[in-house]
């Protein structure tokens, strides 16, 4: 047992926890392994073959979403009595990574956890709008009460899956003077009078999912459509973000892993200078760096998920996971194209799609810059005098 240098009380709590959970991070429990294998099989057989076409045609994989719903992947951590799979966040992370390895577009919102800790039962697939850019507290969409209705006005930009969702959660300012404590969350079914969609953005990557503005003009919804108490919106958004970061980290891991798979396979097959290029040290160094980047990001992601499952604070770890995984995705996909050379630049091989898909992971669900601020904030708090 090596000497653990305790810097502060938070550290020792986490370290004790890590020692207990180390075996879980080193190897997944059996159910998680079966889940991982099931998702991997599905991704290999049903998603990888169509991913290129979905990207070219910008088409939404409706059937596959329904399949995954039937398998229970869309509601992994929802309790069984509410119709979910009743598994934990680590399972969610593992499933996301495997699905993403097949096709990166599957940006799921699997469930909504409202601030009182109650699950929201929702039959439809819906999209979550946090949409304020990096300045999360400055929600310019306004909501005011008129009789027994809420009236919402404003525009939300960059909303994923907007054209394919059946409902949406909107964060709007209910009390401007309270600043971020005056933001509330609302559930709006789609379509709905007063809610319209902007044009579909023509994106660099993850093209199978639609991204568009959602425009609210005198959008009226019943009072009961407010989620959680008034003013709890920011807190709900932040909580969702923390968990969402683990999901995006898993997605980025899937893309990174797919890039490594593609590059390593090519290194075995492509011959130059008389042997497979995998024999060249230049290529080997790249593959090694890619593998290390992925494995470290994966362990960070599993750790964040495990902390969340044990209801321990996980904000710092979630931000670290998202940062590490998204940077691993862009790094690995970049190197994969380099290893494939000319073949990496054409659509015949998936490397170029991974490169384009990876790029967004450093931007959405909190830019890499925001993640660094979150991490720094946590680190400074630990060292507070």
């Amino acid at each position, binding site marked *: 047992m090596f000497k653990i240098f305790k810097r502060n009380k938070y550290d020792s709590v986490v370290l004790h926890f890590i020692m207990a959970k180390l075996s879980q991070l080193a190897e997944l429990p059996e*159910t998680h392994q*079966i889940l991982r294998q099931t998702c991997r099989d599905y991704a290999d057989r049903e998603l990888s073959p169509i991913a290129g076409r979905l990207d070219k045609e910008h088409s939404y994989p409706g059937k596959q979403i329904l399949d995954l719903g039937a398998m*229970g992947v869309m509601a992994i951590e929802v309790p069984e009595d509410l119709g979910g*799979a*009743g*598994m934990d966040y680590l399972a969610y992370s593992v499933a996301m990574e495997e699905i993403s390895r097949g096709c990166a577009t599957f940006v799921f919102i699997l469930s909504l956890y409202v601030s009182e800790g109650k699950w929201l039962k929702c039959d439809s697939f819906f999209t979550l709008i946090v949409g304020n850019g990096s300045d999360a507290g400055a929600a310019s969409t306004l909501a005011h009460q008129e009789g027994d209705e809420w009236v919402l006005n404003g525009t939300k930009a960059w909303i994923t899956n907007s054209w394919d969702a059946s409902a949406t959660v909107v964060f709007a300012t209910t009390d401007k003077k309270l600043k971020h404590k005056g933001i509330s969350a609302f559930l709006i079914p789609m379509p709905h009078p007063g809610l319209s969609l902007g044009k579909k953005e023509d994106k660099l990557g993850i093209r199978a999912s639609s991204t568009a503005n959602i425009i609210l003009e005198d959008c009226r919804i019943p009072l009961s459509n407010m989620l959680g108490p008034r003013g709890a919106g920011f807190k709900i958004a932040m909580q969702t973000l923390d968990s969402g970061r683990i999901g995006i980290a898993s997605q980025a891991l899937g893309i990174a892993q797919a890039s490594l798979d593609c590059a390593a396979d090519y290194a075995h097959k492509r011959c130059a200078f008389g042997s497979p290029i995998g024999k060249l040290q230049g290529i080997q160094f790249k593959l090694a760096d890619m593998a290390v980047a992925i494995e470290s990001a994966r362990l960070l992601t599993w750790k964040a998920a495990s902390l969340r499952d044990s209801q321990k604070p996980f904000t710092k770890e979630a931000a670290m996971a998202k940062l590490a995984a998204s940077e691993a995705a862009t790094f690995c996909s970049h190197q994969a194209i380099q290893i494939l050379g000319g073949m990496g630049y054409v659509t015949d091989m998936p490397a170029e799609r991974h490169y384009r898909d990876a790029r967004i992971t450093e931007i959405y669900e909190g830019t890499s810059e925001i993640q660094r601020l979150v991490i720094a904030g946590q680190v400074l708090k630990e060292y507070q005098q």
Partner: protein
Amino acid sequence: MTGRVLVGVKRVIDYAVKIRVKPDQSGVVTDGVKHSMNPFCEIAVEEAVKMKEKKLIKEVVAVSCGPQQAQETIRTALAMGADRGIHVEVTGKDYENLGPLQVAKIFAALAKKEEAQLVILGKQAIDDDCNQTGQMTAALLDWPQGTFASEVTMEGDKLKVVREIDGGLETIKINIPAVLTADLRLNTPRYATLPNIMKAKKKKIANMKPADLSVDIVSRLEVLKVEEPPQREAGMKVETVEDLVAKLKEGGTI
């Protein structure tokens, strides 16, 4: 029918893995190599679970013979919908020498013990390609067999089985109890749903040894050598049909 079905599931090297022969030519490398359920066994499990869903049978019991790791394969069958599992423990040299005849003896004994109405197996395993276990099991039990099944329908107290044979398709009607072996086109195995993966954790897997079933697993066969197929040699290009014919005659092919 309110009976019980035994489904055999074998743990084999995953179909996507590149097989390597051991340097001493005694077998193939299995250590650290990815294993999974034999694809034909998956089809067998799917058929059994479908029969249960149609209420044609009451209980699906997944059976596997092998070392500790065989339990993973049984667990996958449970996640697909089997009700319980039986792990017949065979380890070490016994496991290396385990072949269709011994497995058939085990299944015959279990079918009697469990009072099964049906035994469904994959038509063959992708590691040894024997295609014998189903047939031998039926013979030991003196039950009818529907092998290479691509379609199975219950008709009263009989089974109508469409079999894939060299000449095409053959339809037979057999009595129950019977042994069936699943061919490729019988069905498309389902993906285990997450709720079922969780439920599978709670399902029981009983442990036993061949001796508990009074089965003697001594092999009557001895593997002498395992070697790789010959390396495919490079071909050669010729310019004209006459050259081609000449080369073929030269090589003694024609």
